[in-house]
């Protein structure tokens, strides 16, 4: 779960990290209590907000009201702005960069720090990667004090105790709340000390069960702010907890693995077809999940043909066939349905499909060819 800025800052503040005193504004009337000059920051779950005009500096209440009104009517990279974080403007002498994540190379938590933060950080990563400090540490030891001193020295930190406390708070949050990313950028040096001016936190959905209250609270807020306008299919996928990504095309796709899902997208595209979605059921799929996946994918009115491509190890083909039949019993499929089936218990599964008149394919290339043809045929008919 990727948090909104205001959520990330609240978590950081709870751990003792200095953040500007902000208030969340959802209508122009709420600008009343602001101190000026103030910064208004659109709360959207994407980066590049500044360049897209999502950050405004305002100097009095009228200006603030107008800016809020404007911002609340815009979209930033597709996301509607439904809330604005208003903070007093801070005098910044230096913008630093500080982040914590698991280094996939060493499988260890790693501090990333740079004396040049803010918008330029990615540029620096490309141009002068040696200026970025990367310090993995042993998860069993936690953040050692020499690493704090070393990073502090690399960043020429004046206030070493606060810097250490911030890093320790980040590690504490990272570990205790199962974060996969805690990023402060910029971490600003100001006349009043270090302040986290912007923050990004991603929580590990796989560990949500350990933090049910926190996730519930954050999700509730995110739902309210509406991460984006969802299609009925997307809403359904979320309810059914099925991995589903809406795409632009007409070929509905269901697979029993992410790798084969991506492969099939590639093959469809290279065969001249346009996938309508990516949808994979995961290794523990059963008949019910299969039926639900069909429900999700077919809820997209753009779908002109459906390819179900299965090659199961852990996923059992008898279960999958059962799921397809179950869906068909509930409602007919009005677009061409191509099933490719191979793997564990496939004889049972194929027999089940044949009983309802579906002849499963065995060859993936052929199945892809067929589904692309089916859509072309449909388009041809229509045109």
């Amino acid at each position, binding site marked *: 779960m*990727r948090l909104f800025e205001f959520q990330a800052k609240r978590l950081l503040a709870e751990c003792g990290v200095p953040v500007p005193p902000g208030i969340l504004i959802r209508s122009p009337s709420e600008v009343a209590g602001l101190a000026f000059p103030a910064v208004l920051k659109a709360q959207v779950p994407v*980066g590049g907000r500044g360049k897209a005009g999502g950050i405004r500096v305002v100097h009095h209440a009228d200006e603030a009201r107008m800016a809020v009104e404007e911002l609340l009517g815009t979209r930033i990279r597709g996301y509607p702005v439904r809330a604005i974080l208003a903070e007093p403007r801070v005098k910044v002498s230096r913008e630093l*960069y500080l*982040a914590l*994540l*698991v*280094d*996939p190379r060493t*499988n*260890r938590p*790693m501090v*990333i720090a740079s004396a040049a933060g803010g918008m330029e*950080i*990615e540029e620096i*990563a*490309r141009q002068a990667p040696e200026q970025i400090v*990367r310090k993995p540490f*042993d*998860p*069993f030891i936690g953040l050692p004090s020499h690493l704090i001193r070393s990073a502090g020295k690399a960043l020429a930190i004046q206030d070493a105790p606060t810097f250490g406390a911030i890093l320790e708070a980040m590690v504490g949050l990272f*570990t205790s709340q*199962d974060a*996969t*990313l805690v*990023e402060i*950028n910029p971490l600003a040096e100001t006349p009043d000390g270090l302040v986290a001016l912007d923050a990004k936190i*991603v929580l*590990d959905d*796989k*560990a949500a*069960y*350990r933090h049910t209250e926190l996730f519930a609270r954050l999700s509730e807020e995110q739902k309210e702010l509406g991460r984006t306008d969802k299609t009925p299919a997307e809403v359904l996928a979320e309810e059914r907890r099925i991995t589903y*990504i809406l795409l632009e095309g007409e070929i509905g796709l269901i*697979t*029993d*693995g*992410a*790798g*084969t899902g*991506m*492969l099939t*997208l*590639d*093959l469809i*595209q*290279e065969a001249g077809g346009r*996938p309508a979605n*990516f949808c994979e059921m995961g*290794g*523990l799929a059963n008949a019910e999940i299969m039926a639900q996946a069909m429900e999700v994918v077919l809820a997209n009115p753009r779908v002109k043909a459906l390819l179900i491509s299965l*090659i*199961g*190890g*852990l996923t059992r083909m008898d279960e999958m066939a059962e799921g397809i039949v179950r869906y068909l019993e509930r409602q007919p499929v009005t677009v061409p349905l191509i099933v490719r089936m*191979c*793997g*564990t218990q*496939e004889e049972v599964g194929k027999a089940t499909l044949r009983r309802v008149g579906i002849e499963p394919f065995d060859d*993936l*290339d052929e199945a892809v060819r067929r589904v692309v043809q089916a859509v072309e045929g449909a388009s041809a008919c229509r045109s």
Partner: protein
Amino acid sequence: MSILIDQNTQVLIQGITGTVGSFQARIMRDSGTRVVAGVTPGKGGAEVHGIPVYDLIEEAAVRHRIDAVLSFVPARSALDAALEVIDAGIPLLVLTAEGVPDQDMVKLVRYAAINGTTVVGPDTPGLVSPGKCKLGVHPNRVLKPGPVGVLSKSGALSYEVCKALTEQGIGQSTIVGIGGGPLWGLSQQAVLRLFQQDPETKAVVLLGEVGGTMEQEAAAYIEAEMDKPVVALIVGRAAPAGSRMGHAGAIIEGEEGTAASKIEALRKAGAWIAHRPSEIPLLLRRLGV
């Protein structure tokens, strides 16, 4: 030979009394794998398809030599169960669980490394050396003994490729599913090294996907150390750009996460690039396999 496992490997199954565990135990045993024991806490004394079940690995280890553990324990208990395997000093653990929290994996992988246990996974179908030992859930019909080593992030993708190989008469030495990430016990590079050292493996098929930088590290290894031919298929060429890990993702990954960059790196390293599973047997034939 083969890598990591062979016909003498004695296997213990964690979670053997569950639906998946007992179903796969039978398939494994029927395909000739020496499944000597199972463990499910509270079910000690039972049998599953004639395989004795114990409460604790330490009890099983008194009666059986255990070379490898295949874990069907769900994600929430995966770390706990892995600690038992590692503490028992078992050299190889295959973690099928999907959805193990990252922090758990960080601890698990570190503890395993300290204690000398090789971890394959998580989110892996396991590994199999056709005709010798099956420490996984791969569908049998796609498997055939032979000279090609296969390694894959995605389980199903490796089945697709093995199906293509087997249908063209090309067998496999060992098929290793390293797992779906984002953290891995065993990396592509580590598996490539094992294949490079294995006399029975004549060529390697590397199956990768968009995201991360592991394929670039594999490419560096191929260029520096490998003399066996490598055929690579990277999927996700048409995938939409995923949401990245903030700037931190860009800093550690740069542009290396794209399929195009991975394909480029592998091509430069001397690997042969396939675009679909059905091309792979053709390429291998051309390479003399």
